């Protein structure tokens, strides 16, 4: 504990000192014309319904640019750096929710003893090879999904929620293993995220007027034309632990060490009759060591899809064993031993040339049409759970590969993407239309019809967007409101779903789904007061997020944003949970003659219903009030 406090002080002093140093030259911020140094301090304080403080993040960001002009054969040479450090006080100020005192003892549903019966963690039906509570005590845990739903006859288990230095249970090495300071000081980690961006730009001018424009270093590379959704904008992974899906991607993309080079041809006549107003070819080589999305670790305020909790609980089950609610016979809380079910490890791709990621883009303007064609080979930034790993049979003690056993390793498969985008101004309706689409191969989905409990599918995703300014005279006589609507569609082309004895089994994700967003933004006081409302509706999940906010530019330097994030609609959804997959036949058969490894379709909220609820549905109980203040210098 002493060490932690010292560490906290150190970082606070560091941040305060840095802020002081940074603020000293405010008056000389407009220094030499070829040098720019600026930055901001920001406090983001969020309160969550039923939880209290969910964010008290203090960020100091410094940005510097040095333009060197012509250097040797290169022109427009410049060096850019962005440093960002933050301290989120929520882990200290609300530590019984998100810090070292979070969680507690849990009880798990045991329908075998009655409709509302429960047993404590460790009090379930003991398999012949069970677990010792000494290795996995009933403390510092929550019941999987308890913030969103009751167990309701489904499966659940205890999930440790304290930072990994406080409780290492369920911490997955190299993937979801944050200790207290990793959470408090998000950027100060072994990937040096406090260096948010550091790159050099340089141009090489060809004699024909074309330009080879290169950016080398830690950076964000942005593809596509849509907001919020990532159809083509998939080069950098994203930090969803910051504010789920709701922050500007600019703030939550995780910069990577990348070479990006553009061959800029400008207006180009390819041949007689085919001429582009602008034509550009881009090569992107992400040579950084692979990084997945930060999906949030269980115990952090933002855990997208609550997946981090599922993973942590599953890893703890593998490492330590544990009690699973309503499991045996579909209703008896059952104590599994270590190495029987759960997540064994995450296979993080190491650095090798073969593991780097390459993209190509052709982008231009043809007449009134802006377009791009994109191709990218990359590693999925979302985890795939692959079954089929050696595990112990809880009844016999035998170790082997059991069909449809819920024992997994995490992989990040290679994905190939082909796509494109268009924008067009439709004069007749005074509206800008945007289209972005991608076809991917290699993505993997949970699939309870498969013995390894996953399958690969090609996927088509697209976004159609429209932007229009509309006057609403009774709200503002002189300035129009911006209306920006988008529909995001996802089609899993190799989707599988079958009706089994107790319910549907297969891929939990919807075969086809759409999410619509609408932004309405107004401007008052010469743009210094800007109210807006963003709504997002997941059609299949039946879940909606509504985020009203008001931004007030008090001065050129000081900005205050007050808002809310409210969800309505359906939350948790149920799907086959593979309790009835019969991996250890005949001990686990749910009906006479059930083939080994074949799901009978018994389902509940956990763990696969989350893929139907989506990020909005899974956050139904995370309504927040949000206040952000930023001082720029």
């Amino acid at each position, binding site marked *: 504990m002493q060490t932690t406090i010292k560490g906290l002080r150190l970082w606070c002093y560091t941040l305060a000192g840095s802020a002081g140093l940074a603020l000293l030259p405010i008056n000389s911020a407009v220094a030499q014309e070829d040098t720019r140094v600026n930055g901001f301090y920001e406090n983001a304080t969020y309160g969550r319904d039923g939880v209290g403080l969910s964010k008290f993040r203090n960020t100091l960001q410094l940005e510097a640019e040095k333009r060197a002009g012509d250097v040797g054969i290169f022109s427009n040479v410049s060096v850019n750096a962005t440093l960002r450090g933050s301290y989120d006080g929520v882990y200290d100020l609300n530590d019984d929710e998100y810090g070292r005192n979070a969680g507690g003892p849990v009880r798990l549903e045991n329908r075998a003893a009655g409709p509302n019966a429960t047993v404590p963690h460790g009090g379930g039906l003991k398999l012949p090879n069970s677990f010792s509570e000494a290795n996995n005590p009933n403390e510092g845990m929550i019941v999987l999904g308890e913030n969103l739903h009751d167990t309701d006859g489904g499966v659940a288990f205890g999930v440790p929620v304290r930072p990994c230095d406080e409780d290492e249970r369920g911490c997955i090495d190299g993937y979801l293993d944050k200790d207290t300071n990793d959470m408090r000081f998000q950027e100060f980690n072994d990937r040096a995220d406090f260096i948010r961006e550091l790159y050099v730009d340089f141009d090489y001018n060809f004699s024909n007027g074309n330009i080879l424009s290169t950016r080398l270093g830690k950076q964000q590379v942005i593809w596509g034309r849509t907001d919020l959704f990532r159809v083509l904008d998939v080069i950098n992974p994203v930090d969803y632990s910051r504010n789920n899906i709701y922050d*500007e991607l600019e703030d939550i993309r995780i910069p990577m060490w990348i070479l990006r080079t*553009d061959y800029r041809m*400008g207006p180009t006549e390819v041949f007689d009759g085919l001429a582009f107003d602008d034509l550009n070819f881009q090569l992107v080589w992400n040579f950084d060591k692979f990084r997945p999305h930060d999906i949030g670790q269980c115990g952090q305020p933002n855990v997208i899809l609550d997946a981090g909790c599922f993973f942590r609980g599953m890893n703890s089950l593998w490492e330590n064993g544990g009690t699973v609610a309503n499991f045996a016979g579909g209703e008896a809380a059952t104590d599994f031993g270590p190495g029987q079910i759960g997540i064994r490890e995450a296979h993080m791709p190491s650095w090798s040339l073969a593991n780097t990621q390459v993209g190509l883009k052709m982008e231009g303007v043809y007449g009134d049409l802006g377009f791009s064609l994109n191709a990218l080979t990359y590693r999925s930034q979302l985890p795939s759970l692959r079954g089929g790993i050696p595990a112990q049979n809880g009844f016999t003690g035998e170790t082997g590969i059991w069909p449809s056993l819920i024992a997994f390793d995490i992989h990040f498969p290679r994905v190939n993407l082909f796509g494109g985008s268009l924008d067009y101004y439709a004069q007749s309706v*005074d509206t*800008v239309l945007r289209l972005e689409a991608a076809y991917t191969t290699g993505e993997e989905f949970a699939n309870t019809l498969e013995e390894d409990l996953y399958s690969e599918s090609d996927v088509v995703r697209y976004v159609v967007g429209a932007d229009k300014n509309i006057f609403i005279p009774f709200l503002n006589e*002189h300035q*129009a409101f911006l209306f920006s609507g988008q529909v995001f569609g996802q089609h899993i082309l190799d989707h599988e779903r079958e009706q089994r004895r107790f319910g549907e089994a297969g891929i939990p994700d919807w075969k086809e789904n759409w999410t619509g967003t609408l932004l309405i933004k107004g401007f008052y006081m010469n743009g210094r007061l800007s109210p807006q409302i963003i709504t997002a509706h997941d059609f299949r999940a039946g879940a909606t997020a509504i985020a009203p906010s008001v931004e007030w530019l008090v001065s050129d330097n000081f900005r205050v944003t007050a808002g809310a994030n409210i969800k309505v609609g359906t939350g948790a959804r149920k799907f086959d949970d593979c309790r009835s997959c019969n991996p250890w036949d005949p001990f686990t058969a749910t009906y006479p003659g059930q083939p080994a490894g074949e799901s009978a379709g018994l389902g509940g909220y956990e763990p696969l219903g989350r893929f139907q609820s989506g990020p909005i549905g899974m956050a139904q109980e995370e309504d927040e009030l949000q206040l952000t203040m930023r001082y720029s210098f």
Partner: protein
Amino acid sequence: MKRAFRKSVFNGLVIGLTAGAFSAGAFASDKVINESFHPYKDQMPSHEGLSAGMTIDESNVAQFKDVIDPAFYTFIENGWTSIAVGKTTSFDLHPAYVDATRNALGEVSLGEQVGEINGWKAGRPFPQEPDADDPRAGEKLAWNYKYGYNWGDSAAIMPFYWKYRDMESAKVERTIKFNFHFLNYKGRVIQEPTPEITPNPSDLFRAIYVQVLDPADVRNTQLLIHRAADDLKRDNSWLYLGFQRRVRRLATGQVTDAFLGSDLMIEDFEGYNGRISDMDWTYKGTRYMLMPFYNHNELKLDEETHSDSNGYQVVAFSGKGGCFPDITWQLRKVYEVEAKPVDESHPLSKRIHYMDAQTFTIPRTVAYDRKGSLWKTFTIGQAHPDHHLPKNEGTGVSIDDSFSMIDVQASHCTTGQFKGQVDPELSPPNMFNVQHLRATGS
């Protein structure tokens, strides 16, 4: 013999008449050109009681009502500002532009519908004096503005300071620092290549590129406007948002909206930044009026807003709310032109433009809201290029040097302070491509 005599007399008459006709035609051409480009060569305008060096304020403004537009007259009458009168000076445009006009004289005509023009290659398309009986006289003046020498073939305003001011409290609410760049693709008369930059697949006439340098919340916002040579075709516009790092195409509705919260819409840039075909144009008359033309280097300048190694300083502002440029005004020949938006949903009901006859800049515009009430007035101060930055000397460009857009309904204004530079190296063609926005964005 008699026949031979008659024949020679006839021949002589033919030759003489032809020569006379040619010389009369040449004389007529010169007259048109001279009157259009050198209106002060033979006679300086005057108004009773008006003299260089005097100040017009609320005490004496009534005497000069005829030479001040009604909106500005009210400002002076209210005691919000005054006019320092300077001597009328000739703002000679570049001879190459004048020659291009001369060479095309009589070859340019309007098409059937507003927005169509035939035969224009370069220069002023309609240098003839407007005819009040010509129902399309206003449209011709609008073409003269559109194809005016304006910033020349290319130029940059680097930097360009916009200040948002509360007129009542005089508080500067916001200061935005820009770079503006202009490039003509067609009608080029001086900078190579002339007369057109090729390839030009979309047949562009002009492009404008804007980059925001400060403050932080809008830094790196970039705007690119492509204006087609075909006036009936809408502009293509793109906005790069620094905080999103994305290029977004703009709808037309967004060019008639407040630009970055200022009192200007994109359509206001340079006086009028839209299509001829978006407006119904009416010529209202020719007058001598006081207009904001001056020698920048002879002004008392703003010592605080801008400083650079060249020692250049920008125009200072004073008056009510700090909304009025500290400049001198001179009596000049002006065409009054009314522009009514064709689109009924346009936020304005009309603009009254006061076009300077010699330069075809629009130094004064008065705009009315949809109800017909006075809404905004726009002043663009014009600096003589020979009394500005050394690099601007001899360019023949009437330098846009200061502006003030006053929203009289909101008691608010946006002021602009320029460092205008006629320098082709600052605005290369590759700057005006969409990809440049992405490459420049961080």
